[in-house]
C-alpha cells in the first residue's frame, strides 16, 4: 500500500474564501449569458431571464470546490455522506416526477440541470467512497498519475491481442445479430467510417506527430474525385477507389510540400486554412463541382459486377438473382458495412505493418526530435511528405466510401468540425494507439447516435471531453508505446512484438 503522506488540512476560513472566489467567478461567467436569453419574437428581440440557472451554477461551483478540496485532503467521508444521498434524491425525483406533477421535472425545471446535478453528485460521492476505502489511493502527483495511466494503457494494449480479434469477430457477425436493424447498421457504418478516418489520421498525427487540422480536405478530394470520375467517365467503384486514393495522396503531396517544414502550431493553422480553402472552392466552383447543390446520383458499388439493387440496370444482373436469394433492402446496407469494415481493416493492417518498417520508425523518431533525425542522415521533408500523403490516401478512400454510401455529396459535409472530430478521436484515444481510436470513435460517435435526445449537447460534450481528457492526461487516454523491435523477447508474452 502506498504511504500516506501527512496532508495539510485547509482551515475552514480559507476553504470558504477559496470556494467563494470560485463561486464569484462562476457567477460572473453565468450572469450574462445564462441569466439572460435573447429570443426572437415576431418583429424583434425579447429578453428572457433565467436566474435560477445562475443561482444553480454559482451554488454548485461553491459546493463543488469545497467538496473537491475535501476529497483532495482525504476528508472523503463527509463528502460521500452528503453527495450520495443528494444523488439518490435527484434520481428518485426524476424517476417519479410524473407521479408528482407531469408538467415539470424536479427539483429544478430543467432536465439537463437535474441530470448534471445527479452526475456531479454521484461522481463526488463515489470518489469519496473509493478514497475512504483506499487510504493511499490518492494520486495527486502528476507523474504518478501518468505512470498509472500508462500502465492502464499498456494493459489495454496487451488485452488488445484478444480484444482486437474479439471486436472484429463481433463486427463480422453484427449484421446477423437479432437486434441489428437498419438503424443499428447505419450507426455501425458511421462508427467504422470514423474509425477508418481516425486510423488514417493516426499515421499523420499519431505516428509522425504532424498537426493536421485540415484532414477533411483529403476526405473531400476522395469523395469528389470518386463522384466526378464515376459520373463523367462511367467507371465503377472498384476502379475509382484506387484512383481517388491516388488523387488524394497527390493532393497531400501538393499541400504538404510547402508547409511541412513549419513548426507545430503553425502547421496546424495552415492545414486548417487549406481545409477551408478547399471547402470554399468546392462551394463556389459551380460548373465543376455543382457548388452548394453538390453532386448526386453517385453510383453504388457492385459485388464483382453484381448489383445490389432490387432490379438490375440493362445488361446487368443483381446479386440476389445470381444467388437465388430473396431481395431485402437491408442487404445493401449490410454490403456497405462489410465494405467499410474491409477498408478499415486494410488501413489497420497497413499501419501495423509499417510501424515495423524503417519509414514507420522514422516517423516516430521525427515526432520525438527532428534535429536528431537530421543529424542521423534522415531527410525530414521527404519523411514527413510520405506520412502526410499516405494519410491523405486513406482519407481519400474514406471519402470515396462516403460518396458511394450517400449517393450524394455537398460541401456541407466537409467542414472544419469534421477535421476537429477526427483529430479528437485520434488524440483522445491516445496517439499512435490503434485500439484507442476504436474506443474513442465508439464513445464519441456511437454513443450520441444512440441517445438522439442528447444530440444538441453532443458538440458541447465533445469540447468538454477534449479539454478534460487533455488536462487529465495529455498523451491521450490509452496511449502507451510498445517498441517495434525487441532484443530480448519478453518472457511474459508469447510471440514477438
Amino acid at each position, binding site marked *: 500500500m502506498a504511504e500516506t503522506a501527512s496532508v495539510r488540512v485547509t482551515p475552514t476560513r480559507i476553504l470558504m474564501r477559496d470556494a467563494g472566489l470560485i463561486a464569484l467567478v462562476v457567477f*460572473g461567467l453565468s450572469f*450574462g449569458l445564462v441569466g439572460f436569453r435573447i429570443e*426572437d419574437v415576431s418583429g424583434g428581440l425579447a429578453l428572457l431571464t433565467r436566474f435560477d440557472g445562475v443561482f444553480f451554477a454559482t451554488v454548485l461551483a461553491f459546493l463543488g470546490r469545497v467538496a473537491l478540496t475535501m476529497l483532495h485532503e482525504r476528508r472523503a467521508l463527509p463528502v460521500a455522506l452528503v453527495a450520495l444521498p443528494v444523488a439518490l434524491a435527484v434520481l428518485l425525483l426524476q424517476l417519479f416526477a410524473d407521479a408528482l406533477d407531469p408538467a415539470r421535472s424536479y427539483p429544478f425545471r430543467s432536465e439537463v440541470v437535474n441530470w448534471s446535478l445527479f452526475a456531479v453528485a454521484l461522481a463526488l460521492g463515489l470518489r469519496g467512497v473509493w478514497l475512504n476505502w483506499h487510504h493511499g489511493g490518492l494520486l495527486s502527483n502528476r507523474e504518478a498519475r501518468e505512470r498509472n495511466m500508462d500502465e492502464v494503457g499498456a494493459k489495454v494494449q496487451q488485452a488488445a491481442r484478444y480484444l482486437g480479434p474479439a471486436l472484429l469477430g463481433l463486427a463480422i457477425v453484427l449484421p446477423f445479430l437479432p437486434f441489428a436493424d437498419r438503424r443499428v447498421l447505419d450507426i455501425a457504418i458511421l462508427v467504422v467510417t470514423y474509425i477508418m478516418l481516425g486510423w488514417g489520421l493516426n499515421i499523420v498525427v499519431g505516428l509522425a506527430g504532424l498537426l493536421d487540422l485540415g484532414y477533411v480536405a483529403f476526405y473531400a478530394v476522395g469523395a469528389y474525385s470518386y463522384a466526378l470520375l464515376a459520373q463523367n467517365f462511367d467507371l465503377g467503384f472498384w476502379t475509382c477507389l484506387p484512383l481517388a486514393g491516388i488523387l488524394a495522396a497527390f493532393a497531400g503531396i501538393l499541400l504538404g510540400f510547402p*508547409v511541412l517544414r513549419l513548426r507545430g502550431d503553425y502547421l496546424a493553422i495552415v492545414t486548417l486554412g487549406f481545409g477551408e480553402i478547399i471547402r470554399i472552392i468546392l462551394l463556389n466552383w459551380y460548373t465543376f463541382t455543382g457548388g452548394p447543390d453538390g453532386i448526386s446520383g453517385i453510383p453504388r458499388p457492385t459485388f464483382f459486377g453484381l448489383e445490389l439493387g432490387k432490379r438490375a440496370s440493362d445488361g446487368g444482373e443483381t446479386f440476389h438473382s445470381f444467388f437465388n436469394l430473396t431481395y431485402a433492402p437491408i442487404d445493401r446496407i449490410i454490403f456497405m458495412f462489410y465494405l467499410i469494415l474491409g477498408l478499415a481493416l486494410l488501413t489497420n493492417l497497413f499501419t501495423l505493418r509499417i510501424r515495423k518498417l524503417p519509414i514507420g520508425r522514422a516517423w516516430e523518431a521525427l515526432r520525438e526530435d527532428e534535429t536528431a533525425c537530421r543529424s542521423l542522415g534522415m531527410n525530414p521533408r521527404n519523411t514527413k511528405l510520405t506520412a502526410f500523403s499516405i494519410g491523405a490516401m486513406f482519407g481519400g478512400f474514406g471519402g470515396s466510401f462516403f460518396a458511394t454510401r450517400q449517393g450524394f455529396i455537398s460541401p456541407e459535409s466537409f467542414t472544419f468540425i469534421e477535421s*476537429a472530430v477526427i483529430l479528437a478521436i485520434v488524440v483522445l484515444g491516445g496517439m499512435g494507439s490503434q485500439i484507442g481510436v476504436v474506443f474513442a470513435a465508439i464513445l464519441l460517435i456511437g454513443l450520441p447516435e444512440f441517445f438522439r435526445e442528447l444530440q444538441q449537447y453532443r458538440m*458541447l460534450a465533445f*469540447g468538454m471531453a477534449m479539454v478534460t481528457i487533455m488536462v487529465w492526461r495529455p498523451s491521450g487516454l490509452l496511449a502507451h508505446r510498445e517498441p517495434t523491435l525487441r532484443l530480448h523477447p519478453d518472457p511474459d508474452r508469447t510471440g514477438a512484438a
Partner: protein
Amino acid sequence: MGYFLQQLINGLTLGMIYALIAIGYTMVYGIIGMINFAHGEIFMIGAFISIITFMVLGLLGVGWIPLALVIMLLVTMILTAVYGWALERVAYRPLRHAPRLAALITAIGMSIFLQNYVQLLQGARVKPLQPLISGGFRFLETGDFIVTLSYLQLFIIVLTVVLMFAFTFLITRTALGRAQRACQQDLGMAGLIGINVDRTISLTFVMGATLAAVAGLMFLLNYGVIDFYIGFLAGIKAFTAAVLGGIGSIPGAMLGGLLIGLIEAFWSAYFTVEYKDVAAFSILVLVLIFRPTGLLGKPDVEKV
C-alpha cells in the same frame, strides 16, 4: 476615385476590429508560445454580452445612446475579461508544460465548447440589432457616388486608436508591461527573479479578452447582426493579421489587422465577394510559407 476612398474607409474600420482581436493572439503567443484557438470565441462572447447589455438597458429605460454605449463598453469589457481569465485558468494553465499537441487540442476543445455553450444558451438564430449610430460626414460628391465616413466608423476608429495608445503605454511604461516582456523573453528566468509568472500570464489573457470584447461590440454595431459562429471566421482572420504583422509583436498585430481589413474590403469590392475568405486564408498560408516571421517580427533562431 470616390469608390476607392469609400473602400479605404471601410477597410480601415474593419481593420481596426481585426487589429484589436489580433493583439490578443499575439500577446498570448508571445508569452506562452501558444495559439489561443478559443480567442475568436471570446470576441464572439463580447459581442453577445454587448447585445444583452443593450437589451437590459432598454428594459431599465436607459434610452440615451451615448450613455448606453459607455455602459455596454464597460460591462462587456469586464464580463468578457472574466471569460478570458477562466479560459486560461481552466484550459491552459494545467497544460503549460505539456506537449504542444495537447495544448492545441485543449484550445480547440474550448473553442468548440464555447461556441456550443453560447449556441445552446442563446439559440442558434442570428441576433439583429437596430443601428444605434446613424449619420455621418459626406465628402467628395463626385458623380453619383458620395463618400461617407459615418459617425459609427469614426467612433470605431477613434476608440481603437485611443485603446492602442493606452495599451502601448501599458506595455512599455508600466511594471506590468515590463513583467510581460520579461516573461516573453524567458519565462523560467522571470519566475526566478521574482515576477509572479502566473499572474502576469493571467493578466495577459485578461487584457487580450478586454480588447476582443471591444472588438465584439464594434462588430455588433458595424454589422448589426451576430450569431455564435462569428468567432471562428473573425478569429482566423485576426490570427492571419497577427502572423502577417509578426507574431509576438504588438505593433505588428495592429499593422497586420489594418492590412487584412483593407485587403478584405478591396477584394470584395473589386473582385468577388464569395472568395473573400479564401483571400484571408491564402494570405495566411503564403505568409507562413514565405515569411513566417511576418513584417515586423524577429527571426527565430533555433539553438542546437
